[in-house]
């Protein structure tokens, strides 16, 4: 038990500054068919599953860490004032993130070895852009007010993906206490635009021969894109991209659930360890090099000196800008989940339904879920405490209180309802945001409709 307490404290300590696109409510929602996508090793209590096409698992997430729409577009006072007030609070690590996943189909069955095998496909749109606050302030205020400031190109980061993911997974309860699962993914990249992993700095220091030396050091900035061909800008072209994009990648998910004791369970999952290799309709633009400027040295030469042209030439020789069509890799944003829950209240015997794991289930659980996702610039993390209640074998609810960078107290709720063989899963985060969407920093919604056969 001490180890468990230590683990909890450790996670809270590590993730005290919470960040991320965090699907806290849907993760490990007991018995939900949609939980399988968040943890391939989640405990499964059904023998066969069939997702209602297009509606089996839809997730919408939008968040903005730096400001709300209301901060900028509230009626009344002038826009300039609101813009500058917002800009002054903005940090380089603030970002806007939109993620939409729509599962087209899924089907799963239990084989003779009691392994649950399943496959499916989902379409995903994912966009993240960091607000390079320093560079925006440089453009709006100039450099004079803070002449020695260091402007770092690593904060120039944006990535947009439109991909199809085909997956095949296996979930196995190896013992009464342990369920493990893994999933293989084939990605088909329909379109991508990204500028990530940029480096280099622009800064000013005191000079020797003049007041300052302005530096561009180790500049390496690249924007890459795939999926747009201006010569084939037709509907049939884009339709063909959905069928055979020509940009493929591989991914791997892994997860497990472990019952530590009758009351305590742990689970862990890692999702989207993978990449996509883009090689079709590539358009890249790269800037690299170093340059220093200490002013214009007047020669007083008898020969004519075109100083301005010399500076331009010297800059162009040292800072190279070039287009290319080189294929490139796009790394998927891997996610990591960890959850710990503690059972309370009455025992509910599920032996009739939970044929693979005939252990008793509690009617009430409390626990925490921690999360991390590898994104450009920095990893996003989040933590959530939850209370889950099973009202009956057909109805469960879950309430979460989450910390992430959009909010330090986001309340989410989930409902799992089975009517006949149809299971409804509905989860939503940041319920308070619904009271005023304009002031909300994030909203997420997940809906799943699946036919389950016990």
């Amino acid at each position, binding site marked *: 038990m001490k180890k468990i307490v230590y683990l909890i404290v450790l996670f809270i300590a590590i993730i005290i500054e919470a960040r991320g696109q965090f699907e806290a409510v849907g993760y490990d929602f007991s018995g939900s068919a949609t939980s399988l996508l968040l943890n391939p090793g989640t405990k499964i209590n059904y023998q066969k599953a069939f997702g209602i096409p297009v509606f089996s698992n839809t997730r919408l997430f939008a968040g903005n860490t730096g400001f709300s729409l209301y901060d900028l577009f509230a009626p009344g006072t002038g826009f300039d004032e609101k813009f500058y007030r917002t800009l002054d609070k903005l940090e380089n690590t603030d970002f806007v993130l939109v993620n939409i996943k729509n599962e087209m189909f899924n089907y799963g069955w239990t084989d003779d070895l009691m392994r649950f095998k399943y496959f499916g496909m989902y379409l995903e749109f994912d966009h993240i852009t960091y607000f390079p606050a320093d560079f925006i302030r440089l453009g709006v205020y100039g450099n004079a007010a803070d002449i020695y400031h260091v402007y770092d190109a690593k904060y120039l980061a944006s990535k947009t993906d439109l991909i199809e993911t085909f997956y095949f997974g296996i979930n196995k309860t190896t013992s009464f206490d342990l369920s493990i699962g893994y999933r293989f993914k084939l990605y088909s990249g329909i379109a991508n635009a990204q500028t990530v992993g940029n480096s280099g700095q622009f800064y000013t220091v005191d000079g020797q021969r003049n007041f300052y030396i302005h530096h561009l050091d180790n500049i390496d900035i690249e924007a890459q894109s795939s999926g747009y061909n201006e010569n084939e800008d037709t509907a049939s072209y884009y339709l063909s991209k959905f069928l055979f994009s020509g940009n493929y990648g591989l991914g791997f998910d892994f997860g497990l659930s472990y019952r530590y004791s009758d009351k305590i369970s742990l689970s862990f999952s890692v999702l989207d360890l993978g990449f996509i290799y883009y090689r079709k309709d590539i358009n890249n633009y790269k800037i690299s090099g170093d340059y220093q400027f200490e002013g214009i040295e*007047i020669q007083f030469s008898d020969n004519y000196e075109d*100083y301005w042209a010399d500076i331009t030439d010297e800059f162009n020789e040292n800072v190279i800008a070039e287009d290319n069509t080189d294929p490139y890799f796009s790394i998927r944003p891997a996610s990591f989940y960890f959850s710990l829950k503690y059972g309370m209240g009455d025992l509910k015997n599920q032996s009739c339904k939970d044929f693979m794991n005939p252990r008793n289930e509690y009617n009430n659980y409390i626990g925490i879920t921690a999360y991390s996702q590898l994104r450009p610039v920095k990893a996003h993390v989040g933590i959530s405490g939850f209370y889950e209640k099973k009202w009956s074998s057909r109805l469960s609810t879950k309430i979460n209180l989450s910390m992430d960078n959009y909010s330090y107290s986001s309340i989410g709720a989930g409902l799992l309802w089975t009517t006949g063989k149809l299971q409804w899963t509905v989860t*939503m985060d940041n319920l308070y945001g619904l009271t005023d969407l304009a002031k909300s920093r994030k909203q997420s919604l997940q809906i799943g409709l699946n036919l389950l056969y016990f």
Partner: protein
Amino acid sequence: MKQKFILIFFVALFFSCTSDLDFDQADHLDIAPVIEADFIYFDLSKPNLTDYNGEFRSSISDTMKIDVFDDGDIKKAFIKAEVEVAYENSFERNFFSELIFTDENDLNLASATLNIKAANDNVVKGDTVYVFDKQTYPGIINAKKIILNISISPNTLPIEDKTLHFQSKIKVYTQTTLEK
């Protein structure tokens, strides 16, 4: 009871409120960036002040073409420029420097002068700031050249093996409106 609960949950889920937002107000934004950068510098020494024959030159000059004002947006956004200069003179002579902004035909659009004092036993240091604003010098936004003239006060002594270090920086004030 359960059905009511589920109904309430679903109904609550799909109802939300939002404050009024006015996106039209963002059709323009006033910005006023102030750009600061190094400007010209030089070190004058004996070779600069003598000609090929070794004869003393009492004045020297150089011209720098500039094309920043070829851009109509910059021309429109320009408010003023502050040029800060600093010098260190070890010559035992006075210098007179003149910075002139001209158009293509060398017409004087704006200028500034600086008297550089002669050194005594020690190096003489000085600095000053010149302001070129559009109201005082309306023609400055048509500048195509900067001419720098340096003249040395007459002296019967041979030119010394000393230096005049001159450095400067420029702070450009702009104001513009970004429009949709």
